[in-house]
């Protein structure tokens, strides 16, 4: 069974509303802001709508960088991208002046509910929750507030939250057989036991009958262009001159067309019914493109079901 590492990585780019913008800009400036609800509670971290009444909230209020642990969980084995690389505690922390708690990490071996902590700021701050490096034990008084209004000259308006997830991808039995055959420059499909259609590439099921396909069938190498399009815009990172032709190709013996690039013929001479064959390049794991075989064109009736 084939297996391979698969990494999914994406920069999650999000814009901020006025409240989130003020909170995250505040962190960049070492100021913590909450939002006041109409019944006078202060929510930290702040949200734009009251979680109970759904009223819009805009009344920003400064709170202290010190607070109290309301619950905690000791994490003996930190995972990648968590705030600290050495054992730490997760905690919900109610900052002095706030009525709700913020989730973050506490850098301490022992933590208890009711413990007093304060923010340890990150050296490089950009307007993100990670501008708080973590919290640390603190038994002094809450510092004086500056009375910040929540107005900033250069507010942060968006965040980029990079994410990376690692997988071990396994395509399953049917697709493993397909990929393995391709490595020998052969194309195999699977025949449905009920409707007898041959699917390429095989995915292990007939989408018409909803039953497993198992009987392996070699198809091609020749095939027929069933439909095509002319690509006029050059794709990023793709070293193919435009215009080029991308087509659906029904390999001989297959009941489903697969797609591929059609070359070896001027782009404006490609046509439905054109007979083609795959062209493999050294060491490739799939055909680079399909080229005309020189055979007479296929009759429309022979491929009209495969359009």
């Amino acid at each position: 069974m084939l297996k391979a590492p698969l990494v999914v990585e994406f920069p999650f780019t999000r814009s901020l509303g006025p409240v989130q913008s003020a909170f995250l800009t505040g962190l960049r400036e070492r100021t913590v802001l909450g939002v006041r609800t109409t019944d006078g509670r202060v929510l930290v971290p702040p949200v734009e709508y009251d979680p109970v009444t759904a009223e819009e909230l805009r009344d920003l209020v400064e709170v202290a960088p010190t607070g109290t642990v309301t619950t905690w969980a000791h994490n003996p084995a930190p995972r990648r991208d968590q705030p600290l690389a050495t054992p730490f505690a997760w905690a919900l922390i109610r900052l002095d002046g706030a009525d709700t708690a913020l989730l973050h990490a506490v850098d301490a071996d022992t933590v208890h509910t009711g413990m007093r902590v304060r923010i340890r700021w990150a050296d490089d701050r950009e307007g993100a929750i990670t501008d708080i490096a973590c919290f640390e034990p603190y038994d002094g008084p809450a510092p004086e507030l500056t009375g910040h209004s929540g107005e900033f000259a250069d507010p942060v308006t968006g965040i980029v939250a990079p994410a990376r997830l690692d997988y071990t991808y396994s395509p399953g039995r049917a697709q493993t057989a397909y990929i393995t055959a391709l490595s020998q420059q052969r194309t195999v499909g699977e025949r449905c036991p009920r409707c007898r259609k041959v699917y390429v590439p095989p995915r292990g099921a007939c989408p018409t009958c909803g039953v497993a396909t198992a009987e392996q069938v070699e198809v091609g190498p020749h095939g027929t262009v069933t439909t095509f399009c002319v690509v006029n815009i050059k794709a990023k990172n793709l070293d193919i001159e435009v215009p080029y032709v991308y087509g659906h190709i029904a390999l001989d013996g297959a009941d489903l067309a697969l797609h591929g690039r059609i070359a070896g013929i001027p782009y404006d001479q490609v046509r439905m019914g054109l007979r083609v064959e795959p062209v493999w390049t050294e060491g490739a794991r799939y055909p680079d493109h399909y080229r005309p075989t020189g055979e007479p064109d296929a009759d429309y009736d022979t491929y009209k079901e495969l359009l």
Partner: protein
Amino acid sequence: MTRDIAVVAFAQSDIRRTTEESSEVEMLMPVLHDVLHRTGLKTADIGFTCSGSSDYLAGRAFSFTLALDGVGAWPPISESHVEMDGAWALYEAWVKLRTGDADTALVYAYGKSSPGHLRDVLTRQLDPYYVAPLWPDSVALAALQAQALIDAGDTDERELAEIAARSRRAATLNPHAQQRGSHPQGDYVVTPLRHGDCPPIGDGAAAVILAAGDRARELCDRPAWIRGIDHRIEAHSLGVRDLTDSPSTRLAAEKAGAFERPVDTAELHAPFTSQEVVLRKALKLDDSVRVNLSGGALAANPVMAAGLIRIGEAATRVHRGEADRALAHATSGPCLQQNLVAVLEGDPR
């Protein structure tokens, strides 16, 4: 329009740590065939199809479209999908049947957790501004809730261990369960939760057939009538909530009619031992109710299917005449963020 809707059949795969030899559709198809076989229906007979799964588990966009091959999706069928546990797909199908647009529905759900690192994958469902950048994993968040319960005097580690032991003992009678029989509590994963307090990570699939009115009676000797079903959500921010309680579960149960008469059986979707404590309190379940005879999520927790399995397990006990009025609960998100409650009844005997 009001019409009675029932669960008439349920099937599930064996839940296993890994199914790397199968693609999603290959894992799912035997379950679909099984559930159809129980009613004698063919895929073409189904009025509506709805599924639950997650692209983040698969590591691939629109991953549910590949699984559609298994239901015979050509020629085109009436079909929908939720990026949630299949219990919510069942809710959508129930609405569809209530409107009279269909008489039967196939609901399925599947999840393969084995290709990725589930604790990391689940961080991506969190608030992307304030929480997800810290990567707090699913066990860590459940542990914060467990500590809050311990601080409140609602439970202790000994009771949590008993919940774990009872669940896995019950699972010895469940051939599909992943973790059965005695299982050591082990070390702390994230204090105060030990290995035994956490669900196994596994791959699996489940499917249910719903039918309306007389159609249900034709397809099943003793249909499990859905007397009520409702789902509710907590405030998004963890720090706003009282983690020792689940008002959304209580409200969903109330709207589903769960408190009108006592239930005799309950299937609770509590992936962590501490969450069963919260749910029992929210649902006012006392010792007269048989809870998680299947072993629950502590014995098998295929993400995206485990909630649907709770409904299926509860319905199966009604089908067999082992229960007359059963409650099924499903959850999604961190610390019981979203909760669905269904009340199932068999005809009087």
